């Protein structure tokens, strides 16, 4: 049928940008799932102990006495207990202020050690391991010195899996973190390794109640809780923006298809006059709508492939990771868009009257 090239381009681009937006949000969502929970999920431990009432890593205030690690270490089946202290603070980089979550870990234990992107992961006093995305964003390199609450820290390495999108982690020694907090003997969590062959559930059962007002979790449960918190906060926001994007895409599609129907009303009138059944007209409009949606999807997917690396370069904290599932989901959403985009134009087609054709 008669297609206006400018109109087709605008429609495809309009849907394409909606698709691009949906892909970015889906990739951000997946990125958060893999990157933001990366540090917690990759701890080489079987159990976590936290203050009673705390169920996750990211959204909680868990306060424990570091000395209680010794009590837990005596529990039958426990191989190693190491304290981890979490402190939210501000690091000064030249003139810039950067908010980070400092993780004070026992440098002798592997349990708190982040995954390396560059350099050394085992801090000594006055040394810090920085999240690589945050480092890239602020131009921080290995060997640089940061100031945290008036104390200088030398950057010895950059880590991965320590970017929770809204905030990032940096790792120092437990003692340094306690000094910055101004409270010695303080910890947030205990990372617990069990002996070989002991199921995590059994380990947790033995840890329970050993120290008053604490709660023990298997590593799998604690990691899942943390993921739920991350997702729970982010998912509704991303979903809302994605839906808004889809609505804009739908509006563009409907508007332009409606215009196309008005322009092609002679064709629809002729088809009705010569006896085209309703299904034929529906198919004709639906075909145009789905073709525009398909073109928009390709446009958006290509746009994502081109722009995602650029976005990550400009905003390193943007944890993007597009899964095949997410791509398929956005594809299906675009199909749905194509179907819905045909609804109003089809109603207009229904009102085209073949008797119009007699008016010369």
């Amino acid at each position: 049928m008669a297609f206006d090239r400018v109109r087709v381009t605008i429609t495809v681009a309009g849907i394409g940008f909606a698709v691009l937006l949906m892909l970015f949000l889906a990739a951000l969502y997946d990125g958060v799932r893999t990157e933001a929970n990366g540090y917690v999920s990759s701890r080489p431990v079987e159990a976590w102990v936290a203050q009673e009432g705390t169920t996750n890593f990211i959204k909680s205030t868990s306060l424990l006495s570091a000395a209680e690690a010794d009590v837990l270490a005596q529990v039958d089946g426990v191989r190693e207990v190491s304290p981890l202290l979490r402190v939210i603070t501000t690091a000064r980089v030249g003139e810039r202020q950067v908010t980070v979550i400092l993780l004070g870990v026992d440098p002798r234990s592997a349990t708190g050690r982040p995954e390396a992107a560059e350099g050394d992961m085992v801090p000594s006093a006055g040394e810090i391991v920085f999240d690589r995305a945050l480092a890239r964003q602020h131009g921080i390199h290995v060997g640089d010195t940061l100031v945290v609450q008036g104390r200088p820290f030398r950057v010895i390495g950059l880590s991965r899996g320590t970017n929770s999108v809204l905030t990032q982690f940096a790792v120092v020694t437990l003692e340094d973190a306690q000094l910055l907090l101004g409270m010695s003997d303080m910890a947030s969590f205990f990372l617990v390794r069990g002996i070989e062959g002991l199921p995590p559930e059994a380990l947790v059962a033995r840890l329970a109640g050993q120290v008053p007002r604490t709660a023990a979790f298997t590593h799998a449960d604690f990691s899942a809780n943390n993921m739920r918190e991350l997702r729970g906060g982010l998912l509704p926001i991303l979903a809302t923006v994605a839906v808004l994007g889809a609505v804009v895409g739908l509006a563009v599609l409907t508007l332009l298809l409606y215009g196309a129907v008005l322009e092609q009303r002679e064709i629809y009138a002729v088809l009705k006059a010569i006896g085209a059944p309703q299904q034929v007209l529906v198919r004709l409009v639906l075909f145009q709508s789905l073709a525009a949606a398909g073109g928009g999807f390709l446009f958006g997917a290509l746009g994502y492939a081109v722009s995602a690396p650029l976005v990550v370069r400009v905003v390193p904290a943007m944890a993007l990771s597009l899964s095949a599932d997410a791509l398929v989901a956005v594809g299906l959403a675009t199909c749905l868009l194509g179907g819905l985009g045909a609804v109003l134009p089809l109603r207009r087609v229904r009102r085209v009257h073949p008797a119009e054709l007699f008016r010369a």
Partner: protein
Amino acid sequence: MTSAVAVRLANVSRHFEAGGGLVRAVDGVSLSLPRGAITALIGPSGSGKTTLLSLVGGLLPVTAGVVETDGIDLGTLDQAALTAFRLHHLGIVFQAFHLIDALTVAENVELPLTLAGVRRPDARRRALALVERLGLAARADVLPRVLSGGEKQRTALARALVLDPPVVLADEPTGSLDAAAGEDVITLLQTEATAHGRAVIAASHDPRLLARADRVVAMSFGRVV
């Protein structure tokens, strides 16, 4: 089953609400129109010719009365049935041709065959045969915009005839054509009526069509006079 009467109107009226007033476009018309003949529908502009054709073709519902086209009471059909009725019983030719610009001559003619479920090679063959019969063989694969007015109307006629309809409606079929092309189309309509037994009903001001019509129905203010 097929009676000699192709179209029967009994006390048919069609009114329009327009500008606060009531327009009696067709007002109590009773008629029987034969097969195998051209009926010329004449009358001044606004006398109701086009409205009458629309009623006969089921393109407009009546306000009152009964329209029977090819033995079918159109008042008993729903929209879907009316559409199917037009496809199989009716051919329509417009003054403004109304070809589909994006389709070639042969594809325009193929369209009703496709709609009727005829498969591609067969549809193509039948369309080409008719295109040839109407003297358009050399134009089969061109787009309508390069055709002359006469060729356009012959293409439109081919599209109207390709499913072999018993009734052909034509609204001012020569109105957009020069003298020679108009003559041509009238001859074709006459052949369709006499050689193929179709009822051809043509609303027209053209005196040549009037001269070659088997029957003339004159209208004035929505009535047959």
